[in-house]
């Protein structure tokens, strides 16, 4: 499959996390080229920026700080998509502290990138086993362009113990003991709590929707 490639490019921000290869392969399976990088200029010039992540917010924010990427990411105006921990990093803060994003304990507040005004908290699983691991359904799906073709009841792959609550920035929700944000968005920033790169054909659809967004498409949502 060949695509019309513009002068710009797609980048995956090298957050030092382990799932970079699977995100890259998912983009490449759709016929797009993508570069994994922590180079400030490449990130700034990209058409689309993907912010992946697994592990702990503290560890990932420490990496982002060490690479001087905080203000770079905050000033991006092109579409940016965060996956899982990458979504959580887009919020004001996470309570997960030193623990991994999948452990239901909190022992400190980690300031995040503050791109979408909501806060990540322990998942209120109401006695369900943690981590919330496996395929779960989406509900309350908004008409955000990144969710084009996704319907209520479609399954996506989740692995986490922390989540963003339902808020005005929620564009899709999920339920595991209680409702939480499966996806959030504000302006050019979009985050998915699930892993689109591991969510079969529907996950690929979301990545494709993102890569096909026009540069101005998110401006006046």
């Amino acid at each position, binding site marked *: 499959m060949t695509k019309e490639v513009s002068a710009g490019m797609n980048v995956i921000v090298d957050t030092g996390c382990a*799932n970079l290869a699977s995100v890259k392969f998912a983009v490449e399976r759709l016929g797009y080229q993508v570069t994994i990088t922590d180079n400030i200029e490449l990130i700034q010039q990209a058409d689309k920026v993907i912010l992946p992540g697994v592990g702990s917010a503290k560890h990932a924010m420490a990496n982002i700080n060490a690479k001087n990427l905080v203000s770079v990411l905050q000033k991006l105006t092109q579409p940016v998509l965060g996956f899982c921990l990458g979504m959580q990093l887009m919020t004001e803060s996470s309570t997960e502290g030193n623990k991994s994003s999948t452990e239901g304990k909190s022992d400190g507040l980690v300031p995040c990138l503050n791109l979408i005004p909501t806060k990540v908290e322990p998942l209120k699983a109401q006695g369900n086993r943690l981590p919330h691991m496996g395929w779960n359904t989406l509900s309350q799906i908004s008409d955000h362009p990144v969710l084009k073709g996704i319907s209520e009841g479609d399954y996506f792959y989740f692995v986490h113990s922390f989540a963003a609550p339902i808020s005005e920035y929620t564009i899709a929700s999920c339920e595991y003991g209680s409702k939480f944000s499966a996806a959030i968005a504000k302006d050019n920033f979009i985050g998915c709590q699930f892993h689109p*790169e591991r969510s079969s054909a529907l996950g690929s659809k979301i990545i494709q929707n993102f890569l096909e967004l026009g540069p101005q498409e998110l401006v006046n949502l």
Partner: protein
Amino acid sequence: MLARRIIPCLDVKDGKVVKGIQFRNHEIIGDIVPLAQKYAEAGADELVFYDITASSDGRVVDKSWVSRIAEVIDIPFCVAGGIKSAADAKEILMMGADKISINSPALRDPELITRLADIFGQQCIVVGVDSFYNKEANAGKGEYQVYQFTGDEKRTKQTGWTTFDWIEKVVSLGAGEIVLNCMNQDGVRQGYDIVQLKQARAVCNVPLIASGGAGTMAHFSDVYQQADVDGALAASVFHKGVIAIKELKNYLKTQRIEVRPC
């Protein structure tokens, strides 16, 4: 609602997918990557690849097939076999695996579980437990016992752990998921060991995956309904075409078990 997972398991030996009966006499099933792709397309929820020679041989194993799998499949997958250190785990995860599973190395060095969970997150650290029901043990009352080095029949040996004590121990050390291989049932298609899995469920507050014994579609509904496991792993019924995943999921739906449609 969270779906119950169907997990084909591909035993890998010298770069080929193989299958044995009660962990013995392996026959070659086929090449890894096309089989992985076939199962992902057929509606599997996750895949597990066990390099069954690695731990028992003590050799460095070529794991380049991990990234070849990550390139083609779009569902989560776990790699097991010969992962003894954080460096081994990092290599596998960087190649695109979502989880790593440890078994014999965890028995030798239980703190390894904690070290891996601290670095990579609890979600990607699976502990595989090979459990054998010994009728003579416990003064003739019978006991579930943990075995080690089950990939090589000459080196397979009993450990000092009973199965449920070991599960509690590894969960307390930071395991994010348990795969319980019931060795008496392996490859003989007589059904999952519901009695054992129910007891394991009671001491396991992280996801629990049943392994060993699947022969019919009813065996899957039994294990979800009676032992409340999060996933069920099977090999020969899928490799030999005894059960098609789509048909299995349709059947489970009629049994009111939550599954992801193919």
